[in-house]
Every structure is written in C-alpha cells, then in structure tokens.
C-alpha cells in the first residue's frame, strides 16, 4: 500500500437480492488526483462510493482509504472524507447556516462560527444564510452540499453526480471549485454523466453492471478503446446516417453539425461502410480520423443502457 494512494481498494463486492451490483471492484486513486467515475444509471457507482466511505459494508474485498482500513476504521475515515450524496441530503427544514453549523459541530471543528461565515461568503450565500435549505434552487443546493462536505477540510472528496440537473454555468463554477481544491492537494473521486466533465478528470474508471471495464488516465483512453472512426461531411446527411446505422460493424454514429462520425472496433468494417456511403451519396466527403474524447464518451454512454434489471 503506497502513501501516495488515497484510495486503494481491491475486490469490493456488494449484492442486493442475490445480484452483484458491484463485482470485484478495484480502485487506486493517487493523492491530489481528480478521478472520474463513469457508468450508466444503476451500474453501481453510488454503491461503490458508499463502500469507500464506510456507508455500506462490502461483503468481500478490502483496502485502505487515507491509509486507514476501509472496513475497520470507517469512523476515522469519515472524519477525513467529504461525501456529497447523489440526492440532496441536507436538512430542508434547517436554514443554510443551521445546516453548516450542524455539520461543523458534528466534526467538532474549532473556530466554528468563523468557518461557517467563510463558507457562506465563499458560497455567495451570506445574505441568504437564514433561508431554509429546502427553498433553494437545484444549483444552490448543490453548492451548499459541497460547502457542507468541505467544511471540515477533508483530504478526500467523494462526489456522487454532484452536477446532475444543474445548469451549465453552475456546473462550470462547480468544476472551477473542484480544481481549486485539487490544486490544494485534495483528492477527488467524482461520478458524472457529463462528457465535458469527464474530460476534465485526470483519470477515469468506467463501470457497467457492477464491473469495472476501463480504468486509465484520461489521455490514454481513446487509444485504449481503440475505436476506428471516419468522418462523413456534406449536406444533406439523413440518407447517409440511415445507411451507416444499418451497416455491419458500426457501433457509433454521432452527428456533429454538418458531419457524421462513424466509429467501431472493426476498422475494416467502418472503412467499408464509409466507402459504401460515398458511393451512394457522392456529394459527401469521407475521411479517416482519430477517435477523440467526444466519440469515446458518446460511445461509452451509448453502449451501455441503464443497468437496472
């Protein structure tokens, strides 16, 4: 176990009703990293995160978080981890300030009032501190939740789809904040559905049906997936799109404005499909391209439908 690893777990497994919703999951997150956690709905992201922060007991597997045993030392882990739940789970009938003070008290923080004041200023909520949390809009709730899980200055942040349903501006602000924490040495494991967020992560773990399918530095992911892509440009494209979707070996047909990117693992098949389109629709241009993040993530997201069974 390395000191540089903030999360180092192996073989984490959890079943509900006889179904393994997380199956033999390994994860190594180095200090200071922003680690993206991707996967379709119901693939086991929340369950995994809960096991990492001691909210669920894995039925098998072991490991350490912040150098502490993930099962035996969960109380001490909790003191040093900030966990932001997928669903807003602060007290809607408490004011913004009361929520923060409550959490600050539970962590036994010194300079409580000063910390809460500062958090309120950082949040931009100092004026509205007496407002009930339940009355806040989605974006503000998200920011309050982040402030609440940061108030004890944790070394590890576990963020479970922190920006789901939040407007793009709020999402950008949120990520700016995460990067600032990261620069201060805070490690982050964040699950997300958004491609633009995924590409901001240093590394990405991808999970489907409880199994980790991919785990690599973000920059290496396109190569790892090994998608062959062709660009089809020109107008109109409706007919071309139909042809591509029907062609054998095609796994992804993504429309980007006036072009279509068609991808698949079988390079020869994709090439055949592109040439076929060119033959039938002579007005289009075709060109072989490198698979970029966009294609990869659309592929990952499209490939796996919701995992609920």
């Amino acid at each position, binding site marked *: 176990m390395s000191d540089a690893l903030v999360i180092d777990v192996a073989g984490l497994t959890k079943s509900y009703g006889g179904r393994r919703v997380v199956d033999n999951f390994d994860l190594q997150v180095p200090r200071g990293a922003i680690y993206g956690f991707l996967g379709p709905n119901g693939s086991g992201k929340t369950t995994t995160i809960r096991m990492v922060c001691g909210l669920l007991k894995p039925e098998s597997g072991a490991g350490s978080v912040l150098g502490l045993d993930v099962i035996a030392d969960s109380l001490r882990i909790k003191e040093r981890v900030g966990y932001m739940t997928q669903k807003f789970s602060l007290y809607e*009938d*408490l004011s913004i300030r009361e929520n923060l003070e409550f959490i600050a008290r539970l962590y036994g923080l010194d300079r409580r009032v000063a910390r809460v004041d500062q958090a309120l200023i950082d949040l931009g909520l100092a004026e509205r501190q007496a407002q009930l949390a339940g009355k806040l809009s989605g974006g503000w709730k998200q920011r309050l939740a982040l402030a609440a899980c940061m108030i004890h200055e944790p070394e590890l942040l576990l963020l479970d789809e922190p920006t789901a349903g939040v407007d793009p501006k709020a999402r950008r602000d949120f990520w700016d904040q995460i990067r600032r924490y990261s620069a201060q040495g805070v490690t982050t494991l964040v699950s997300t559905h958004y491609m633009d967020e995924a590409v901001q992560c240093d590394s990405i773990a991808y999970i489907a049906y409880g199994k980790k399918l991919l785990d690599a530095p973000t920059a290496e992911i396109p190569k790892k997936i090994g998608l062959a892509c062709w660009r089809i440009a020109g107008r109109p494209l409706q007919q071309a799109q139909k042809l591509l979707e029907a062609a054998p070996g095609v796994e992804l047909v993504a429309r980007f404005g006036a072009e279509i990117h068609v991808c698949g693992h079988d390079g020869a098949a994709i090439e055949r499909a592109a040439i076929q389109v060119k033959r039938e629709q002579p007005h289009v241009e075709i060109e072989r391209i490198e698979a970029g993040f966009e294609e990869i993530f659309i592929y990952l997201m499209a490939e796996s439908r919701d995992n609920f069974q």
Partner: protein
Amino acid sequence: MKLPRIPALGLPDLDLSWSRVFAVFLKELVQMRRDRPTFAIMIVMPILQLILFGYAINNDPRHLPAVIEMREDGPMTRAFLASLQASTYIDIVAVSTREDEAEAMLRSGEATFLISIPAGFERRIVRGERPQILIAADASDPVAAGGAIGAVERVAQQAFATEFEGPLAFLARTPAPYEIVVHRRYNPAGETAFNIVPALLGIILTMTMVMITSIALIRETERGTMETLLATPVRPLEVMIGKTAPYIGVGAVQVVIVLLVANVLFQIPFTGSMIAFLLGVTLFIFANLMLGYLISTMATTQMQAMQLTFFIFLPSMLLSGFMFPFQAMPEWARMIGETLPITHFLRLVREIVLKGAGLTDIVNDLWPLALITLVLATLALLRFRRTLD
C-alpha cells in the same frame, strides 16, 4: 493489503462526545420548532385528552340511577327523600325497606348508588349519636364514580341543611350531626379522581413520547438525511441522546399542562410528594423515549412505526392496571404488564397519591423503570445501523 477485520459484535459503542450530542440536540430542537403541526399536537393533545377524560371525572354527574333503602319513615327522612328526589344528580329508581332487595339492584347494575338510611336515624341524630348514612357506589368505573360520589354527598348535605332550621337549628353545626360513609363497591383499590389524573398523564405521556420518538430515525431515512448523518463521525449513542433529549422538555411541558388543567378546570389538586412524583415521572419519560426510539430502529416506514406504537399502546392501556385491576389479571397478562413502563408508573403514582408515599417508599417502582430504560436503550443501540445496509 490487510484482510478484512470482523468488527466486534456484542457491546454497543459507548463512545461519546457531548459536543456532538449537543449538535444533534440543537438540530432536533430547531426542527421540532419548525414542525408547527407536530409541535401543536404535542401541546394540545394532552389538553384535549384530559378534557375528554376529565368530563368523565368531573362532569356534574346527573340522573344517576339510585336505590334508597329507607329503614325509617319519619319527617326528617321523608324530607331527605324529597330533596333527593328533587335533585337532578340522581334518579331514584326504587325505595325499598329491605336491604337484600336494594343490594340486589346495585349488584345487577339497575342502580349505581345505594343510599341507606338506618333505623332510628332521627332519634339518634337528636341525641347527637351521629348516625351513619351509607352511600354505596358502584365504583367499577372509578372515573365516573369519583365525581358522582361527591355529588351525592353534596345532595345529602343540602337535603339536611333545609331540615335543620327552626327548633332543630342546633343541629346545623359542624361536624354534621350525621356521618356519611361511602363504600366503593367493586373497586377495592379505592381509585379516586386524584389518582386518575396522574394515571391519565401516564397514558398521555406513553402515547406522545413513544409516538414522537418512534419516527426519530425513520424521518431521517425517509428524507435521505440519514446518509449525511452516517457520513459524519457521529456515534449511535450521541444520535440517541441528542434526538431524544428535546422530548424530555416536551414531556415536562405536558406534565405541567396536565396538572394545571386538572387543577384549574376540574379542581383536582395534586396530592402527595411532588419530589417523588417528579422523579418517577422523569424516569417514566426516559423509558418511553427509549421505547419509541427502539421502535424507530426497527420500523422502516412511518406507517410501521405507528403500528408498532399502537402495538405498545394497547397493552399499556389494558394490561398495566389502568383499565383493569392488575392483581385480578391472569399470570401471563401480569408478566407482560411488568415489562411496560406505565405499569410501574401507575403503581408509583398510586403509592404517592393514595398512600402518601415519599421518595424512599417508591424505590421499588423506580428501579424497574430504570432497568427498562437501560434495556431498551441497549437494544436500540445494538439495533442502530451505522451503515445504509
């Protein structure tokens, strides 16, 4: 990498930080204050219940069927009979000269009162021998009987007050030249309105304390806030103390309300040692809070919690000695009764109110309450899940 350790089973975690307890306590207090409807119920419910039951206690009883056993027929007794007849408190269903006949009517329930005037009543009154008028009441319903007995006594006094005038004016003195003896039949324990009020308090406290705390944890689970709570280093014992402590205050307010309403509205003062009573009622509140809290660790929905609360509430009414005399119950029912906090509270109250017991006399009822509290708290701590599993 280490192998997974199996966390120690058995003893509950007794780790405790008072500042975390205070955090939970404060939070509960604020939530309680914001939850106006529930807060109102907690305050209004005891008043309503007491008024509801209170009318049975103090409602001027009217038209109670009475049988008069007249062993003497003279001017004074006839005047007494006339004023009894004129009274709206009682309806005379029969006047008999035979004791067995009158007794049979009381037994069969045709009459709830038997008023018996002995032979030689007038002669003995004039001689100053203080003859006895016997009022036998069917006290199997102590709540109703308590008030009614008082009413009949007043009627008797008023009846004679008009008689003791003129040449007999010398009889209008205190103590009265006769004696009214009240026999409560079918209720040897001698329940009176004075101990009905604290007993009612027991029922009210059982109901509200258990009901409120039974959803203490469920509310967190249902609103999703349990996840936040469990993600912090807060310990089960801290949650338990912090969450139940505000309701000690609510219980105290209820005690004050009930005693005040009983006194102001129904003129039923508290008699007995207040200190012993306060200690008893405090322990009783603890026991009920733990009972409710234990329920909240077992149920998963508010509906289940309500059902479990009623599951507790029914035996608390039926098997505690509140409704039926405890000693008259079958063995198994008494055994269940012994495990209920209210059984011990009722005993303690009876001893304080009826027998004038002080602190040292009620130790026998205090320790079972303390034991029940401890057992319930331990069970609740063992049941408390630190994870979302």
